[in-house]
């Protein structure tokens, strides 16, 4: 009988503890910051790349663009490319933007500020187009924000523009635009259709 009483008592104690805990669990919500206030600004997003070609003779302007306004996911990016003129020589400059912010953030300025840690590469397939660097960083290595693009005879093909962060610019062939030994990690890799006519 004595044992039974002890047991009942114990069960009472136990149910009290359970109740106390359930109350604690439901009542004790952290209310100092019930929900987040501000969305995080995605600062390193590159939504837009614009390649501007200015004909050295006629000053005529052509563009190739990549634009993905909502960043990765959501809507698919739009890619456009003007046809280039056979035999023409262009000054080719690259503009990078983050258009999720207003006004748009010019990411190419960040690349220019850290030019020793960045390099563009241009891999042309089939088309008669060649791109040569026309700028250099503090160490005399190319960057690729400013270039000279030379078109040959009429042709079609593709050009892949790659931006590498922290490449090894001293590796064999890298300063000549060969991506093979560059290493680093890729910040941009966009392929444009190229028409030379």
């Amino acid at each position, binding site marked *: 009988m004595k044992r039974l009483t002890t047991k009942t008592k*114990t069960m009472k104690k136990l149910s009290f503890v359970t109740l106390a805990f359930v109350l604690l669990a*439901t009542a004790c919500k952290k209310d100092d910051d019930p*929900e*987040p206030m501000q969305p*995080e*600004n995605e600062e390193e997003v590159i939504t837009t790349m614009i390649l501007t070609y200015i004909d050295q003779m006629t000053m005529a302007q052509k563009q190739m663009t990549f634009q993905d306004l909502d960043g990765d996911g959501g809507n698919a990016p739009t890619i456009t490319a003007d046809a280039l003129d056979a035999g023409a020589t262009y000054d080719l400059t690259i503009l990078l933007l983050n258009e999720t912010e207003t006004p748009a953030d010019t990411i190419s300025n*960040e690349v220019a500020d850290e030019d020793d840690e960045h390099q563009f590469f241009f891999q042309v397939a089939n088309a008669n187009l060649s791109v040569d660097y026309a700028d250099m960083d503090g160490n005399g290595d190319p960057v690729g924000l400013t270039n000279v693009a030379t078109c040959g005879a009429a042709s079609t093909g593709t050009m892949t523009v790659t931006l590498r962060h922290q490449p090894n610019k001293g590796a064999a062939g890298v300063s000549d635009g060969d991506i093979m030994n560059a*290493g680093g990690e890729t910040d941009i890799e*966009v392929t444009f259709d190229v028409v030379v006519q």
Partner: protein
Amino acid sequence: MLSRATALLLVALCCNAVFAQDECLFRISGYVLDEHDRSPLSFAGIVEAGTTHGVIADVDGRYELDGLCPGKVTLVVSHLGCEPDTVRFNVTKDLNYNFFLEHHHEHLKEIQVVADKPDQVLSQDQHELTKEQVDRSAGKSVADMMEAIPGVSTLNTGPTISKPVVHGMYGNRVLVLNNGIRQEDQQWGTEHAPNIDPFGGQEFLLIKGAAAVQYGSDAIGGVVIMEPADLPFGQKVGGHTFLVGESNGRGGTANLMLQGGSRKWKHFAWRGTLTGKYMGDREAPDYVLSNTGIRDLSGSATLGYEKYQWGANVTISSLQTELGILRAAHIGNLTDLENAIERGEPYYIEPFTYEINNPRQQIAHTTARAEAFYRINELDQITALYGWQHNQRKEFDIRRGGRSDRPAVDLDLETHTLDVTYKHFPSKRVRGKVGVSGMLQYNRNIPGTGVRPLIPFYNLWSVGVYLIEQYKLADWELEVGGRYDTRSMEAYKFDQNRELVRTDLTYNNFALTVGGVRKWENGSEMRLNAGTAFRPPNPSELFSEGLHHGAAGIEEGNVDLNAENALKITVAGSIPLFKDKVQLHGTAYFNQMADYIYLEPTGTRLTIRGAFPVFEYKQTDARLYGLDLQLTWNITMKWQYECKAAFVRGWDLDASDWLIYMPSDRVDNSITYTVSKNSTWKFGAASQFVARQVRYPRGVDFADPPGAYHLVNVFAETTIPFGKNYLKVSLSADNLFDTVWRDYLDRFRYYADGMGRNIVLRLKYSFQ
């Protein structure tokens, strides 16, 4: 009856008594109680049979017998007016044992075992690291230590991050219990290792079955339990210090543990630990693994008060870690990954340095715990354990525009847990446990990262109740238990249009366990268990959205995921053969999983970084099954051979294909030579063979599984006594032949080889 109870204790506590000889440094402690009314038997005598080595229990019936040699020890306990009792122990570590003496002169009575710690699920297969194994792995991570147990492997992200894999399950599917508290430290991805200082534990136990009933959600594959030793009530100040030096990484680990009680304040005891680790770049056989250094600093303080009737203790511990992530594994897109795989050798190989650069992780984990027990009567006991954990994780990436000093991931996770357990012994044959556990958890994203957070801001609470009862029959002991859990989560996330979206999720789950243990007189035993377990999807599975840097894939979470449910059946048996010269232990398991969550490749997506494969979190039904074997052969007094093997198979039932990232078959052989019975010198060699994984889904992974490898490790050790103190010196070489290898379960196998030869010197000085 007596032998069965003893055997139960033996097997429960020492499934893998691997090494035959060690120094006589073990302790058995506990209470001597009257079997009828459970009152303490003051001043009972406990003597090692056939010797004069003994001790007298104190007024509360508490005793502590030190200086026990490993192996079979017989203790005789006697008290005025009682029948003396004899109990045989197989000592492989410090034990906690309560004697129950019969005041009346009747037949030799049954002994009831009160196994206070670790709390056991009787019918589950369990393995504990021996004291020797713990000492020999000083300086390693918890996951690497547990690899000594057959059926355990590790999932690595380079040399600095490793997670335990139990029977093919890892991450959130393996529960880690640190000093009684579920470790809650942002195990969102494979690159998040448990933040635990292994020097804070002395007992490392693995439960191989589904153990959700006792431990709650996530215990689908198994439970890793780390416990400190009992506090040294009534003893002088003592402790130990470890110094570990490693050639690979050119650094080391130092640890100091001090503890003591007091003769005057005999109800009080305390312990403090301090651990520091400083390692530079690890090295593969042919090159430096650049940016794989690690720094750890951790400490803990415990104060305990204990009487027979009640007791309480509080612990505060803190761990700070900074670790480098292999620089060559930092990639931007799929082309980079393909280039790295094709190249075979990392792009970034710099000279050795201690410096840690980006990418790196900085983690702080602080735990405060308070525990109290109260004995309602001599056997029934109620325990309450409260834990507070605060985990701060900062991940630094290589970034543009001077942002590298700002963390790209900055998470703050706070968890409160409360567990109330009532252990009861309603009759001589029945004992059990009923408990309530609750958890409150808050995750906060610290603003200012400039990166959209992967893990949302969330508040979570969960409550579970469980009951588990054990019933003793003549040859069997049976066990049955059930649990109900409810978990609610409110998560807030800004969508692509910068609008706040609130998601409310609730999961309710039942878990059951049934099982039994059968013992034979010759020491054979068999454990059968069928248990269910569940795991609600974790926030990364629910809310991931976007590029997983380093994994070269876009991961899409799914808020409609259900909780995973597992039914795991384990059959474990051990048989002594050839007059106990050979011990054979085997575990067979079958784990049927409903709604197993995995990443399925569903297409590609074009981004400005190029095209990426898209992986979506999906659910399927899966089946995991396998076999662990362990054979120990005491060839002579001096030579001992051991073989361990593990085989896991994972099958996707919906897709009729193998599951990805299952550990490949492995066989370990080792031989140990003890110079003589009077010498503490010991030499050993071990070979570890890991087969190539041939069972994997084709065309999903970026690269085929790497080839088989075979590593050889050797060691030599001795113990030098200084009175009551001793110095243990060991020298070992891991990967002795500097073999080039890559493991399938190393996420950085795409980029670099595994670690080359590592010569490790370990010194342990134990003093009192």
